[in-house]
């Protein structure tokens, strides 16, 4: 890791999420998908958000991009990006904010390319629409972009179906960084890909990040991948952050039982075959309290050790 480890308050954060609460409002009852979540991402920092399906991590990403649709409602909290209040932006401001300031690569984004337009047409569109370049200049820049992700510029003339999944995903990542955003949100960018391709794409994102210096919000359920890529990370459970610290600290000394379970869910590739427990079916943590600092920069939601252990044991069989 050559990029400096940013910690709380050392820089002016690029993104600052404070006490965010998102509810899905139903007729009779509403569900709180994100409950009083706060975190910030510094300049040039890769921040990971880990958790299982349904824990609210994608909802957070969508809140930052202001992509939430009914019945989702931001019930409380604030999101500020470079000092600007994201939640107060009007349509025009949002249009500039998205893609130019913050770009997002969605899960299986490779399937979101338009099948009837060539890659070149779709990439040139970004420059003609958002930056106002003429068509020829746009195409030239599109070719540069492909080179940035080490694809042959001749691919501009290809249609999406002519590319493999990995190449499509690269094209999508190239498109995301086209306007030099200061924050890139990656929502499970490689889940649909094979390991070999996944590793190459992650290496490429790392290179791009070093080259262009943007911050990254990286969302995944794969803890190993996240620890490898992120500087700092947070673990979410049931709409709450249960632990946040430098990625390496969480890897070496996970504090919360849920983090430990999540870490234990990935068998190692070396060493003896040790029985792992994972998280037994039916275990639920409820009423997760606010984070408390257990070591410098390492925050864990307090838990009743005995009670949690009893729950884990009880559900094991």
């Amino acid at each position: 890791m050559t990029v400096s480890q940013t910690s709380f308050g050392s820089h002016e954060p690029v993104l600052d999420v404070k006490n965010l609460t998102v509810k899905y409002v139903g007729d009779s009852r509403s569900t709180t998908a994100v409950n009083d979540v706060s975190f910030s991402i510094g300049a040039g920092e890769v921040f990971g958000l880990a958790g299982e399906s349904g824990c609210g991590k994608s909802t957070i990403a969508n809140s930052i991009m202001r992509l939430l649709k009914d019945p989702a409602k931001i019930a409380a909290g604030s999101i500020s990006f470079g000092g600007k209040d994201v939640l107060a932006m009007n349509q025009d401001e949002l249009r500039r904010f998205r893609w130019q300031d913050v770009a997002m690569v969605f899960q299986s984004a490779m399937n979101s390319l338009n099948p009837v337009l060539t890659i070149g047409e779709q990439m040139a569109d970004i420059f003609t629409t958002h930056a106002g370049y003429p068509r020829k200049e746009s195409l030239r820049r599109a070719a540069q972009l492909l080179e940035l992700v080490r694809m042959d510029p001749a691919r501009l003339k290809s249609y999406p179906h002519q590319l493999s999944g990995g190449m499509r995903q690269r094209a999508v990542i190239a498109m995301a960084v086209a306007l030099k955003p200061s924050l890139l949100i990656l929502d499970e960018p490689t889940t649909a890909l094979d390991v070999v391709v996944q590793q190459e794409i992650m290496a490429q994102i790392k290179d791009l990040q070093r080259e262009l210096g943007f911050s990254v919000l990286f969302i995944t359920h794969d803890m190993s991948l996240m620890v490898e890529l992120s500087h700092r990370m947070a673990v979410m459970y049931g709409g709450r952050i249960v632990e946040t610290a430098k990625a390496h600290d969480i890897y070496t000394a996970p504090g919360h039982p849920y983090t430990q379970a999540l870490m234990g869910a990935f068998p190692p590739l070396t060493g003896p075959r040790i029985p792992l427990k994972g998280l037994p079916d039916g275990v639920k943590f409820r009423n997760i309290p606010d984070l408390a600092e257990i070591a410098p920069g390492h925050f864990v939601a307090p838990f009743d050790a005995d009670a949690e252990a009893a729950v884990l044991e009880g559900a094991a069989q």
Partner: protein
Amino acid sequence: MSHAVLSPARPDVSSLTPALEVRGLGKSFHIGGLFSSQAVRALHGVDLTIGRGEIVALVGESGSGKSTLARCVARLEKPSEGAILVDGVDVLKRDRFQASREFRSQLQMVFQDPFGSLNPAHRIEHFLRRSLTIHGKGGTRQRGSEEQTRRRLEELMTTVGLQADMLDSYPHELSGGQRQRVAIARALAVEPNVILADEPTSMLDVSVRIGVLNLMRKLRDEQGISMLYITHDLASARYLADRTAVMFAGEIVEEGESLDLLANPAHPYTQLLVSAVPDPARAGSYDPIHRAQLRQAVMASAGCAFENDPEQRCSSKEPVRHQVGDPLNRHWVRCHLYRPRAGAGGHALATEPEPGD
């Protein structure tokens, strides 16, 4: 699970008739229009043996043919060539047109998607009872047998780690992990010798995956059921399986004791796969130059690391096998000189251009 290190397979596995044996299995798919004579060879000359009470993992990337192999073995697809032996009997000869009930009671499948494999309109009891009835393991209308069936149902649920009162639940009331356990219980009801599990954990939440793997291991340990575990996740293959076979472009390129195979991968394709698994313990290990060399070695190898193998001479025509390391590990690798057919390389290998190309 009190022991510190998980026990390996029983030592006597090789002396008995294997539970499942695949010999020279091949499968081609016809492509193109009605008059086209083109075909894609999805599998070619696959030999695989699963001993009694042994768990064998089949790993490879998507498109490598591992699911096609599973579908052929489960008789959901008709193989183009080769033989499938269950308990030493060639089932393709015995039941020529479709799988017989006898075959189904010997071999059961667990599929990837527990959300799609359980009919949402029925209670859990229905799935298990149906398995029992069809295969005559209970559920007949004789007097007194209802009680027996009921006991068997509850026993099945306990075996897979579910509460017996969940028999009255509908699938939508269960979590993904619980549903996969029901799918396993349904396979168990038949009392099979072999279970074929095609990516049984890939749709589950990460924290419950281990639980399902532990359950599969427990079934092997307690009931001696052999398993073919198909996955793209090398770490879970290492965790669960006694032996691992690596598939590339429809052929098995390396096979051996799981720990040994992943610690000392001999084939460049296996090395490629192993080096790509994210592991924080060796972060920053990505090396594009080494990667390009491995690709080159897979697709157009110039030499074989086992050139001086006294047992087996190298051959670029025949898929000869070289012994790797200690014979006890039964670890072999296909000769590096043998080249995959043109265009057969997994798309990850064939179409991704390397930097500087």
